[in-house]
Every structure is written in structure tokens, then in C-alpha cells.
């Protein structure tokens, strides 16, 4: 196997630090020439300052680069990233599906991108119509009566949902102090409940990876405000007792918060509103493919049951005669007097709304249903083709993602981390590792509906190859992986022990 940068086992040193197309790139601060500038701006008019004596005296320390340098800098950086456009990115629970470029184009139409959020509402009727249309699609797909559009991401949606629940409980004079969270939950669930002033109690999984219903019933009582349950779960499983769970939660006077991070498995197949949930956030950046963008921005609208709708955050888009209004303040007349407040500035992630609606219109009711089926089909295909060599955590069928653990690596000396790093050399982004926490050395694989059978077959072949190699005891190969990535393994301990969070260097005087 040829290895760039190696010749008969010897590392090749280049004088430039580049390695062919793998181009080394310094920080922008190290490319600085004082006085250089990548924009041409007109001469400012000479006015007497109105800055109140607060004129900046000290240099800022920003580097000077020309436009070609800036473009080259970021293009070189980009080449060190893996991306869904380049290859299979099976990060479980993260839903790395194709990002259609049409959606990017439409989000940039001046009629959306160049709208100021505080323009008079009569000048933004099309934008409000878009939000309202997207809301209608979300309500139809979830079978729920109301939706709060403003949350900026999944965890923000969780905050929104739990605040609705807390406000609703307080409104009925029923202070409660506990939120139940399964051990398999995303870490954001307990973190969110804590910000809402709740104590967290965990509910265990049963041996099928589902919520242990009898343990749940024992935990339920008049002190429990809500359960936060991800469905399909982070084990890639549908909670088949979900209706019984909802019934038990409601019998105890509590609310059922569903984490909708995995809604992409069931869009058009089942409506959460038919399962007894009271609220659920939707990650538009997962299910409806607004791009992840290297970690954001996201968008996390929250669908709500009737009982929670009056407490939803501001603002709200409402029909107002022939037009649409933006309700930005608490108002008896608009039914927003009980709102728990405002979560963020302005009205929501409009740029993400445009992309998500374009995704929905493109797929349509038939395509969204087919996408869910294909996502589930792909995950089960991977499961079926790997279960003899890898260790499946819970019996299938799974939903949109397949969960394996590190049982098959027992006594090999190879860890889940090593295995994941070796996948990089095979040309794949690793799956989600060590999550969920309910199994040892978790490997959570989510192929999404975007992958063709050929693509999955290649992935499966690589996974089988690596599993066999691990079983053969080729420990050094795994311990050293990745061998072929732009960078070798990075020292995360050093980064945490001695945090260096910014560049520090001499501030050069700008000479204009």
C-alpha cells in the first residue's frame, strides 16, 4: 500500500512543508504585512468626531492580507476537511445527508437575504408567508397543532420546550422538580433541564435498548414535570412502547418532551402527534438538510400540543386579515399573554427556513416518505452486512442508524477510537464513537438516504476489512492510524491541560 510522504518506510521531507496537493498553511496572522489590505474603500469624509472622546488609541492587531492571499488561505484550509460532498459521513445521530445547492441559491435571493428584521411588516409579507408555509408543513408532518419557530438549534429547541412545560405547570400552580432522562440521552437533555431549574433523574434502558417501562413507572409521580425521550432513540431504535410511555407520563400529570433529533427516520411514516407526545424540537439542519456548516448555524423549531401552545416564545407569525402579522410582544388579544418570553434576537433562523422549505418542496410528501424509508433501508443494510463481524448492540431491525459496540474488539488491543481513525485512511469519516453511553465503545452508524448501494457496499467492504484486520491483531496499524490523513493523531490532552486558545504575537504598527 503506497503512502504519500513515505518512501521505503522513510518519511520524505520537503523543503516547503507542502506534501504535493496537501499544502501547509500558516495562520492569517503570520501572513501579515502592515498596511496591506484586501478591500478598496473610498476615502472617508473629514468630519468632526462624535465618538465622545472614546476614539480607539491602541492598534487592534489585525493582519493585512490581499484578496488573493485570503482566498488562497481559506481554500488551502478547506482541503484539510472531510465533507459530505466528498464522501460518506456516517456520523450517527448527526444526519449528514446531501445538501442541495438549490437551497443555497434560494437563501441568497435578495428578497430573503437582504431583508432587515425590523423592516415594516408590509415590506416583508413574502418572508412571513414563507415562515407560515414552513410552519404548516412542520405541523402536517408531525400531526401537532402549534409550532414555535424561533429556536436557533436543537438544544435551543429543548430549552424552548422545557420552558413551555415549566410555564404550563406553574400556570396551573403545580410546582414540580424532576425531569426524567434516559441514560442514552444526548448530553444536552440534562443540561437543558438543569437550566430550567429541574433536578435530573435517569431512567435505565432494558436489555432491548428501550426505556424500561416498569422502571419509568416507578420513577413517575407528582414531583415529575416531564420526561425527555429521544425517539427514535440514540440507539437507533423506535420506542415500541411509546404510547404506553406517553399514557403513564400523562397519568402522572407530567409532560412528554420528545427529542426530535432523529425525526428523519420517520418523516411521512408516523406522526409524533399520534403517539401522545406534548412537544418536540426538529433539527432543520438534520432532517431537512440545511447544511451543518462545520458546526452551525442550525435551526430548531418546536412543535407543541394545545396545552403548551399558549406558553410558546415570541415572536409569532399570525394571520391578520389578508396579510400576516408578526406578534413581537405579549398581548391578550393575540393570545400571547402567557408566553414564557423571548429566546433570541429577532424572529428565527430565516436563512435556514428558506433552505428547509426548499428541501421539503423538492421532496414533497412522497419524497419525504421515500427518504425516510431509504434512510432506514440503508441503515438496516449496513446492519445486515456487518453483524457477523462487528458486535451489534441490540437486535434489529433498527431505524436510520445501526449501533454496534466494541465487543468484537475484545482482546484485540484495538479500541473503538483506533478503529475509527483507521476508517479515515479508508476514505470514510468515522461513525459517532462512544455515544450513546449505554453500550461499551459505541459505534453509531448513520448512512442517510443520500448514499447509493454502491457507496454502501464500498463502506461495508472497508468495515469488514478493518474488522478482520483488528481480529488478526494488527494493533500497531490501528494505534498509528490515521496514516494518510492531512494530520496524524492530535494531542488532545495537551490542548486541554495548557489551553492555547488564540494566536499571540507581536502587534505590528499599521502604516497607512
Amino acid at each position, binding site marked *: 500500500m503506497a503512502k504519500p510522504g513515505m518512501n521505503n518506510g522513510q518519511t520524505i521531507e520537503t523543503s516547503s512543508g507542502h506534501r504535493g496537493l496537501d499544502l501547509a498553511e500558516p495562520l492569517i496572522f503570520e501572513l501579515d504585512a502592515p498596511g496591506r489590505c484586501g478591500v478598496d474603500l473610498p476615502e472617508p469624509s473629514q468630519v468632526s468626531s462624535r465618538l465622545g472622546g472614546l476614539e480607539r488609541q491602541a492598534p487592534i492587531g489585525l493582519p493585512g492580507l490581499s484578496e488573493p492571499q485570503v482566498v488562497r488561505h481559506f481554500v488551502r484550509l478547506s482541503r484539510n476537511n472531510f465533507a459530505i460532498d466528498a464522501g460518506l459521513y456516517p456520523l450517527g445521530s448527526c444526519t449528514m445527508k446531501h445538501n442541495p445547492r438549490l437551497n443555497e441559491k434560494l437563501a441568497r435571493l435578495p428578497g430573503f437575504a437582504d431583508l432587515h428584521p425590523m423592516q415594516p411588516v408590509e415590506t416583508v409579507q413574502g418572508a412571513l408567508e414563507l415562515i407560515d408555509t414552513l410552519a404548516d408543513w412542520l405541523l402536517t408532518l408531525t400531526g401537532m397543532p402549534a409550532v414555535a419557530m424561533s429556536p*436557533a438549534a436543537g438544544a435551543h429547541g429543548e430549552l424552548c420546550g422545557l420552558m413551555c412545560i415549566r410555564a404550563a405547570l406553574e400556570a396551573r400552580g403545580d410546582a414540580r422538580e424532576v425531569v426524567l432522562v434516559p441514560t442514552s440521552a444526548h*448530553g444536552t437533555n440534562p443540561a437543558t*433541564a438543569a437550566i430550567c431549574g429541574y433536578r435530573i433523574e435517569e431512567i435505565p434502558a432494558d436489555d432491548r435498548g428501550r426505556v424500561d417501562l416498569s422502571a419509568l413507572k416507578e420513577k413517575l409521580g407528582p414531583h415529575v414535570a416531564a420526561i425527555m425521550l429521544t425517539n427514535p432513540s440514540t440507539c437507533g431504535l423506535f420506542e415500541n412502547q411509546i404510547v404506553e410511555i406517553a399514557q403513564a407520563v400523562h397519568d402522572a400529570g407530567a409532560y412528554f418532551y420528545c427529542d426530535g433529533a432523529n425525526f428523519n427516520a420517520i418523516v411521512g411514516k408516523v406522526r409524533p402527534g399520534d403517539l401522545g407526545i406534548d412537544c418536540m424540537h426538529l433539527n432543520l439542519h438534520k432532517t431537512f438538510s440545511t447544511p451543518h456548516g462545520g458546526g452551525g448555524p442550525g435551526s430548531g423549531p418546536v412543535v407543541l400540543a394545545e396545552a403548551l401552545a399558549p406558553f410558546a416564545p415570541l415572536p409569532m407569525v399570525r394571520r391578520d386579515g389578508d396579510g400576516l402579522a408578526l406578534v413581537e410582544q405579549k398581548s391578550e388579544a393575540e393570545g400571547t399573554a402567557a408566553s414564557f418570553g423571548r429566546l433570541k434576537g429577532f424572529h428565527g*433562523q430565516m436563512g435556514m427556513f428558506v433552505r428547509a422549505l426548499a428541501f421539503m418542496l423538492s421532496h414533497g410528501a412522497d419524497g419525504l416518505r421515500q427518504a425516510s424509508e431509504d434512510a432506514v*433501508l440503508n441503515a438496516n443494510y449496513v446492519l445486515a452486512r456487518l453483524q457477523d463481524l462487528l458486535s451489534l448492540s441490540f437486535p434489529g*431491525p433498527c431505524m436510520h442508524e445501526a449501533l454496534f459496540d466494541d465487543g468484537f474488539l475484545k482482546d484485540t488491543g484495538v479500541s473503538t477510537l483506533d478503529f475509527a481513525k483507521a476508517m479515515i485512511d479508508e476514505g470514510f469519516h468515522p461513525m459517532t464513537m462512544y455515544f450513546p453511553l449505554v453500550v461499551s465503545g459505541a459505534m453509531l452508524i448513520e448512512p442517510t438516504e443520500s448514499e447509493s448501494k454502491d457507496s454502501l457496499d464500498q463502506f461495508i467492504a472497508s468495515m469488514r476489512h478493518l474488522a478482520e484486520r483488528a481480529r488478526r491483531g494488527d494493533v500497531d496499524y490501528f494505534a498509528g492510524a490515521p496514516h494518510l490523513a492531512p494530520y496524524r493523531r*492530535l494531542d488532545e490532552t495537551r490542548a486541554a491541560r495548557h489551553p492555547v486558545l488564540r494566536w499571540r504575537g507581536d502587534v505590528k504598527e499599521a502604516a497607512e
Partner: protein
Amino acid sequence: MRYLPHTPADRQAMLAAIGVDRIDELFVDVPAQALLPKALDLPNHAGEMAVEQNLAALAARNVPAGAAACFLGAGAYRHYVPAAVDHLIQRSEFLTAYTPYQPEVSQGTLQYLFEFQTQVALLTGMEVANASMYDGASACAEAVLMAHRVTKRNKAVLCGGLHPHYADATATVTQFINFDVDRRPADPSVADDLAALIDDDTACVVVQTPDLFGRLHDLRPLAEAAHAKGALLVAVVTEFVSLGAVTSPGEMGADIVVGEGQSIGNALNFGGPYLGLFATRQKFVRQMPGRVCGETVDVEGRRGYVLTLSTREQHIRREKATSNICTNSGLCCLAFCAHLALLGEVGLRRLAQLNHGRAVELAEQLTALDGVDVLNDSFFNEFTLRLPRPAAEVVSDLVGHGVLAGVPVSRLHPDDPGLDNLLLVAATETNSDEDVAVFIDALREVL
């Protein structure tokens, strides 16, 4: 359906490999009564051209800010974004990557986050910054929560000039924990005496500069007063271009600086997505919320970057995490970082001068109009007008003249009738002489 690769034959072959006959055998765990027998009652799939026509028709029903003479600000600013910025953020490798949890194949994202953190620290005059939050308002709320953790005190004092969305977001996030938020009344004609409100239970004082009304504040006396009582000073900046012209909050003694980064590199987008900026002192770094990128080396000794200090975060700390926030505004950070790299020291300072100069000229011309007063002693690129009648009416009347005149204070503070005649007006480098002339003429006509 153009986004789905499988042919019917593929699906059959895969079902066979799995060992089932029909797809619904994979949905056996869904309660049978809830499994939908067919697609929902929504339109079926549509071609690219049809979708574009559909949404373009909605877009056409809006008035883009660039199609009018636009003087809107109040936390969102229209600046020119160089073409290279939008090109770079659409690179597949940036656009379609996830959070950089695998650093060996994510150095592109990680390095720009490190550069971004450095830029934010430099601009704010602080020592460290995180890799961004949702927006300025949520960053402000997180700053107050952080002050609560650092000081173990239970009250925040918010200046009257704090953008009400920021104050609202802060009040929202703290409403269910034992914490009081003291919001001072909004009144551009008086200066808050915030120092007098700091007591032994005050975790922080939150001051915006330039504030909602455009006024600039020397934070030094307040920083001293806060520190004397063991409280933190949180500075809020909603227009980061101002930091090219005015003294940074860090130089004036702020302990946490938060704000909105939209105005560098990012379009107006009707209010989102934006990017919350968060900077603080090194000594508080382990109490800082949000994702952080740090420098390290790989096994060959090459300098590289990783997400770090994750023991603060919810993946590990769960309910004891410093914040529930997981997502940042990655791509908006990249836009900010690339635009600021193009501007550099010289460009940002000149851009700030252009903004200030344009605003000063506009203020002079508006002051010359009968019945119009500029209330500010100081401002950067935004100031407050007092009009002879309600500002919301005037703004509405001006739409027909092709002018988006500004933000009526009543839209943000509807409960105080004393503010009804006030209008927030912002000017940036995008406003031409002609825009100003159109505005002045139209305003003269409608008043």
C-alpha cells in the same frame, strides 16, 4: 426523485439482503395504528425549476433593503460583503462538514475557528473568545449565567440602553433559577446611575456600547465600581464595526464582552442566522460557555488544532455543564473571519471611519429639518431622532417614498408612550449621497 440514488431494483436487492420482503417490516416497532399507510396530504415532489419559481415568487413579495434607501439598525446592520466571502463559505469542505470532532480530517474548520477566536479577542480587547454562539442576544444571556457561576451571586443589573431582545433573552433564560434581573428603564435623555445599583448580591452589570440609542459609553468608571463590589462588568456590542473606531471594552475594564457579529461578513437574512460573539479573561476560561478550539500538535509534531476544554460541556458534564449549547454558528464565523481577514487593520479602521462619517453627515442634515432633533451627544453609526409625531407612522409613510427610515423605538419598547416619537437611524458605508438626499427630502415631505 433527484436526491435519492436507489432504483427500485436496488431497494429490492437490499431488502433481500436484509431478509425482509417489504420496507414496513423494518418499521415493526412503530405502533401499527400509528403507521401511516400512505403519504401525507401535502404536494408531491417538484423539480428544481418549479421550486425556484415557487420561492422566488415569495421573495418578490418583499422589499429588499438594497432596493430602498435603508437606514435600519438596532442590532442588525447592512454592510457590503466582498464577493470572495460568499464564495469561500460555499466551499463544499466548509459548507457540508460537521462539527470538527475528528481533528485529523477537520483542520480546515479548526484553524479558522482558532483565527476567529483570535480576531474576536483582539477586537474586544479580551484575552480569549469562544467559537461563537447563536446570536448576540443568546450570548448576552449566557454571559449573565456565567457571571452567576463565577460570582455565585444572584442578580444582574441591565442598563436601560440594552437592546430589549438581549434583555428579554436574559430574563427568559434566568427566570426559572434563583436569579433576579434588574432592567433599568429605557430613556435616551438620562444617563443610568448603574454604579449605585451594585450591591453585594450583584453578579454583573450589563452595559451596551454603542447602546440601543447609539450612545457610546466610557466603561471605566463602571468597571471600577463593579470590581470594588466584587461584581463583573459585561459589555455588549451589537455593531462590531464600531470597534474599528472606538476604544475596546477590554481596554475599559470589561470582564466579559458579548455581541452580535452579523455586521462583519454576514447578510441581514431577516434576523438569522447570525453569530453571537463571546470573549472573556483567561482566568475565567473554564467557566466560559460554548465550543472552544485550542492549539496542539499531532504525533509528528505538526501544529494543529482541536476542540478542547470539553469537560465544561454537556457531552461529558451533562446537567453540570456550563451551558446546554451545543451548536455554534460555524459558517457565520467563517464569513466573519474571511471578511475581517480581507479588511485587516487598515480596512476595518477605514470602514469604521466611513460609517462614522456617513452618520455624522446624516445627523447634521436631519438636525437642520424643522421639528427633528438628534438626541445623541455621542454616536458611532446610529443615533436617535425625536420626531414631531409617532415614529412608526413616519416610517410607514416613508415606505412609499422608497425609504426604510429606521426602527421606531416603540416597536422595541411598546409599553412606554414617552418613546413613541423616537426613531433609531443607522448609516453605513452602503448609504450613498443619493440615499441621504432621498431620505431628507421624503422626511421633510411627510412631517
